[in-house]
């Protein structure tokens, strides 16, 4: 009994000494910076930085081949910490989030054919351009949801997908996955968005969707930040995001979404929200008409008065 214990302890001691020597003799030099960087990485391995996972990015940072601001999930906070570790100055940037620019659910843009294939947008898109009337619209099978590592994307009841801007880190994985190319990166602080990507002319758009942008330019009159390219209104996020709510109200197709007024989920799938909006829009349009008529009357009255004055003078 005693012998066994002693032998065991002896073996343990010898092994411990060997290990201690080995640790010194075969020590691998690890950059202290790399360790520190690995500790602060988000760890989602999303690939949004363009490197193979978080360790790939940390390595590239140490070697100096990556920018400290390249990690979308980490954002400005991480960039600042990376800057501290690497001892470099970091310029902060505007946080961006993904936006699925389509509001044409099953009710607005009905299915044109029965699709019974695999539940993947890319596969469905190749079969005759998809089953939806609008060949630009969201197919709603959720390939983007599958690749989102941050649980930031959800299906709505009426066959669309929405992004939760609070959870979205801007890694752009969904942007690369969408076969329709309708997921855009927008500044997180932006509140007004055109939820349509169909560049076709008014007649073609109206034929396939009831909430598609027709390129009528009525919104352009309300805000200079909205521009019409081909026959599609596009918000110029680079120039600013301060767009008045009248831009949305002026849209005859209700293709412009204003997050200050409505929640995105309600806007996409709740009919009563749409009804409330339409009521508001109608009220605004009537008021606008009245205002214009009054302004015109005033102008004519002024002109008349001037004419009369002139008559008196002469």
């Amino acid at each position: 009994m005693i012998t066994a214990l002693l032998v065991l302890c002896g073996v343990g001691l010898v092994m411990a000494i060997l290990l201690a020597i080995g640790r010194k003799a075969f020590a691998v030099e690890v950059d202290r910076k790399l360790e520190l960087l690995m500790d602060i990485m988000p760890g989602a391995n999303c690939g949004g930085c363009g490197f193979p996972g978080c360790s790939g990015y940390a390595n590239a940072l140490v070697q100096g081949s990556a920018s400290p601001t390249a990690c979308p999930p980490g954002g400005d906070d991480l960039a600042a910490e990376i800057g501290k570790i690497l001892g470099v100055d970091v310029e902060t940037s505007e946080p961006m989030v993904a936006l699925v620019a389509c509001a044409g659910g099953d009710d607005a843009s009905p299915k044109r054919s029965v699709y019974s294939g695999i539940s993947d947008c890319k596969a469905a898109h190749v079969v005759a351009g998809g089953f939806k009337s609008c060949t630009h619209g969201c197919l709603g099978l959720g390939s983007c949801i599958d690749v989102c590592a941050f649980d930031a994307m959800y299906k709505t009841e009426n066959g669309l997908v929405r992004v939760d801007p609070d959870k979205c880190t801007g890694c752009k994985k969904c942007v690369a996955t969408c076969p329709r190319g309708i997921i855009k990166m927008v500044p997180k602080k932006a509140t007004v968005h055109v939820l349509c990507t169909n560049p076709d002319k008014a007649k073609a758009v109206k034929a396939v969707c009831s909430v598609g942008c027709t390129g009528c330019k009525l919104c352009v009159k309300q805000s200079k930040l909205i521009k019409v390219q081909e026959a599609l209104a596009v918000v110029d996020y680079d120039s600013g995001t301060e767009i008045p709510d009248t831009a949305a109200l002026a849209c005859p197709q209700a293709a412009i979404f204003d997050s200050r007024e409505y929640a995105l989920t309600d806007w996409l799938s709740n009919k009563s929200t749409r009804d409330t909006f339409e009521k508001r829009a109608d009220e605004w349009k009537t008021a606008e008409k009245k205002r214009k008529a009054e302004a015109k009357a005033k102008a004519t009255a002024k002109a008349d008065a001037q004419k009369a004055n002139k008559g008196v003078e002469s």
Partner: protein
Amino acid sequence: MRVQTFKGGIHPNYNKSRSEKAAIECVAAPKEIIIPLSQHIGAPAKACVEKGDMVQKGQVIGEAGGFVSAPVHSSVSGQVTAVEPRPGALGVDVLCVVIANNEQNEMAPLKGLENWKTADKETLKNMISEAGIVGMGGATFPTHVKLSPPAAKPIDTVILNGAECEPYLTADHRVMVEYAEDVVEGLQIIRKILGAQNGYIGIEVNKPDAIAAMETACKGTDIKVARLEIKYPQGGEKQLIEALLKKEVPSGGLPMDVGVVVQNVGTAKAVYDAVTKGIPLFERVVTVTGSAVPKPGNFMISIGTPVSVVLAHCGVDLDTAGKLILGGPMMGFAQYSAAPPVTKGTSGILVFDAKDVTLVPPVACIRCGRCLHACPMRLVPAEIAAFSECRMYDKAEEFDAMDCMECGSCAHECPSQIPLVQKIRLAKQEIMAARRKKG
């Protein structure tokens, strides 16, 4: 005589009896013809007419957009009313030339060769290229490209594909019966261009009249008419080569790698017409059949005739129909409307009753291995599909997903109704995208 075939394949219901005896009937071109500028694989043709222009039948309206491209010709005489996107057979809008038919049938001046045997290869090839001839079996690969193999790859054998293994279709069958001499002559022209010593015509044995007609037409030549087993996909290029020559085209390779060029019988007829009469490809034989077609048959249809016009001619009521397919049931394209026009690659128009269309949701793979036995390319469809589902596209590539020709044999055999082809196709698409990215 021995019946030849390949390993694998399936035996679907052929359902050819309703239209195989029907002689080719001409259908008058409608008032409005819609001719897509992209009817072939490769760069789309460039429109060379404008709105308001008068065109003649056979006149070029779209010039080839590159070497792998083909010109497009008007199939009627009349006035161009628009050059605009219209619904195409692949579900998306394609740029089309719309022509109002004046029903005068004014032909553009056409010039063929009186004796093609004395002409040189380049002249013949140019005539084929200018006539806009593409593979008429459905793949629509420009024929002149296939007839220009690199010098390092000499061609010793030309095979004419008369297998017509797709169920329901009988267009090639009728072409072989009714234009036997034209087809043989076309084959001789192709052989001359390629300098090929051997010529074969492969026909499935369910077309005895076609075999007889071709044998008569081939009398006095060294062309061999081969009998093929009735099996799908007997008409695949690589399967035909395996059946007739016992040669295997290497993975990722083309028939020219084993010194063979395969052409459809319809293409051979078009080559004959182009070379001897100068007639460009502006009409083709189309089989219209299926359970919802009261008057099935084979029709000579002007390219650009809307499918709806053809169906009206055959007495089809589209409101009660359940499914419309352009091409064969195995590799054709289901349509959501009858607006697309007949193009150079439309070999058939199939319409089925709603009661014949069943959509069964897929269930789990039971590992029965039927897809394995069915695959004519000797792949493992279930495995590749599983990799595709897990987005492991690199693994799918290792299992040679790129060799899949999407014939649909595996999906046809699958007792679990798994859309195997669609999954493999998705994998192929992703593999191609990854390769492009790599450069």
